[in-house]
């Protein structure tokens, strides 16, 4: 009982985020004429994937006590790269996607190497590398355009059934055992795969635990023999991989690449907001990528409701800002219960 209470109190931020998401999403579906249908679910999942991936990307360096201001730029870079590479025959496309993800991871590795070996503060190092990545993206795609294979784009932005039907897998998706899963949107399926095959193994690895340890107390982690350099570089590399995944998906979704500088900035800032709403501490050491994914879903679920309530587009930025401020302020309310102000000061 006490154990449960402790766990709940430790994850208050996450619980708040889950509650907010359920509230906004259920209201949206309840009022939507086609609410709770697969079509709406697919649309929602598609719209949430990129911001979710970028939020997960932001989480990993944040857990290590850093901040990555280049996630939006890496996402944009891979988006432009994908609009060039993901085309042609089957193997070319697979190779193209692998190259895209590898490019994202490489960009993240460069961030990590500059932070670790250059000993520059992550926030300012990634600010600079972000400009470089945006520059490379603009070289690849000076004007929006490019093309992504239509079949692939269709298959990966629909449900599992359409994916199988497009590529003739499992009797065109009609196989009996597949029926219970056929409704799952592909973006959700990909996200689950990434969580179970990449994030959870990473979190449970020595390196992943090291990342949490560094965020809690870098000095203590160093004294306990945590390989600080390796963990930090791994954290930034994984961030690059997640951001690259987001960029690749954005290319599939829009069938094009666009080196949009304001959009890259907006994704970076939203990723920080998602991390905070999901309950991950910006000081590092607690939280996780799944929390941030839920944080990102909260942000998206809020904007879904703008469509339902027919809120003028002009008012939407105001609502987004107020909800963000409100969420972080509620999360900060514990401050007023703390008697000894020294506990609050670092």
């Amino acid at each position, binding site marked *: 009982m006490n154990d449960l209470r402790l766990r709940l109190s430790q994850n208050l931020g996450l619980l708040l985020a889950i509650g907010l998401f359920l509230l906004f999403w259920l209201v949206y579906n309840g009022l939507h004429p086609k609410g709770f249908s697969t079509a709406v679910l697919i649309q929602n999942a598609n719209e949430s994937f990129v911001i979710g991936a970028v939020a997960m990307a932001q989480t990993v360096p944040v857990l290590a006590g850093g*901040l990555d201001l280049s996630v939006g730029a890496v996402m944009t870079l891979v988006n432009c790269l994908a609009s060039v590479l993901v085309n042609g025959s089957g193997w070319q496309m697979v190779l193209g996607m692998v190259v895209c993800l590898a490019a994202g991871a490489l960009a993240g590795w460069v961030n990590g190497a*500059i932070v670790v070996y*250059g*000993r*520059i*503060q992550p*926030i*300012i*190092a990634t*600010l*600079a*590398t*972000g*400009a*470089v*990545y*945006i*520059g*490379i*993206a*603009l*070289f690849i795609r*000076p004007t929006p355009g490019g093309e992504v294979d239509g079949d692939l784009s269709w298959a990966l932005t629909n449900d599992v059934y359409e994916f199988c039907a497009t590529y003739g897998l499992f009797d065109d998706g009609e196989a009996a055992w597949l029926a219970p899963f056929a409704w799952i949107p592909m973006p959700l399926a990909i996200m689950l795969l990434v969580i179970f095959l990449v994030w959870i193994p990473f979190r449970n690895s020595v390196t992943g635990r090291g990342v949490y340890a560094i965020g809690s107390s*870098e*000095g*203590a982690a*160093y004294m306990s023999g945590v390989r*600080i350099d390796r963990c930090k570089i791994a954290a930034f590399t994984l961030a690059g991989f997640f951001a690259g995944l987001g960029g690749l998906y954005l290319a599939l979704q829009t069938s094009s690449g666009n*080196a949009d500088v*304001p959009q890259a*900035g907006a994704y970076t*800032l939203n990723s*920080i*907001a998602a991390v*905070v709403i999901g309950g991950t501490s*910006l*000081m590092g050491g607690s939280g996780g990528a799944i929390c941030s994914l839920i944080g990102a879903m909260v942000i998206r679920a809020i904007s879904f409701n703008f469509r339902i309530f027919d809120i003028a*587009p*002009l*008012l*939407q*930025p*105001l*609502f*987004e*800002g*107020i909800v*963000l*401020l409100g969420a*972080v*302020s509620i*999360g*900060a*309310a514990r*401050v007023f219960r703390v008697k000894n*102000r*020294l506990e*609050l*000061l*670092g």
Partner: protein
Amino acid sequence: MATGSLPKPASGWSLSPEDKPILIAGAFILVILAIGTAYTLATQGTASFLSPVYLLQQLQVGAFLGIVAAGAMLVILLGHIDLSIPWTLTAGAMLGSAIGGPYAIPVGLAVGMVVGLVNGLGVAYLRVPSMIFTLGVNAVMRGFMVMLTGGYAPQSTATPLMSYLATGHVLGIPMPLIVWAVLSVLVVLLLQRTSLGRYIYAIGNRERAAYLSGINTRMVIILAFVVSGACSALAGVLLAGYSSKAYQGMGDPYLLPAIAAVVIGGTNILGGRGRYLGTVVGTILIVLLTSVLSVMQMPEAGRQIIYGLVIILMLLVYGRQRGVIA
């Protein structure tokens, strides 16, 4: 001195660690000017980068960035950051020019100070990380401005005084440069000669220690954010005068260059260390770099890459931290 050697005796030529970035950034400004001059000599046969007219013009443009950077520096010295600069700047410009008349500039500045006050309250009392709180305030301000203006550039134009402060000349010196210089003197006095300035450095180094020594840390944080908001709004008011009206997104190109200018000038992004002169040098460096690259007709892609590489290079030379911070 982690090596255990005795500290070197201070000779006349020794540099304090805070002077090094300023000298290197200053030298880099000369390199940029030399490259630009070599380019124009080769292509046009003139050394237009070295003409006083061109340099004054660049300083006039740089003054807007310099004013924003001055405010950003105070907040960074505290170990916080102000991401609400873009729409504080825009709000100051829009509301100032909307009010018009003699109250235009005071109203614009007041808007900035109110935004700064909200930032300061959130950071000092709620203890929300400044990065996220100012981000939220920025979104709210953007929302307010979009709601008020309908998403278009407002019709109202800048008052004559705003235009004069942004484009006028006194004895051949552009007015924004004079405004920047006056503000700079005030900031230097604040940082060097007042207890508030000392408190800012103290909090940036260790807030806990500052609090235990009896400093009203909350008040200092709030004041720093208020000054930062006022600086952003001042830059907005001048910028509206410069382009004769306020427009959507006018503040967006100022946030990251302002932070970069502060950091290139040697101010520690974690707070507590840095000199104002460095911020001035950093601002000039960024403005000249941007200008030289655009004269060389570098495409946007190349400009972004060079911009990023220069920041990394400068920081690799002198921004390296020492060891693990326990």
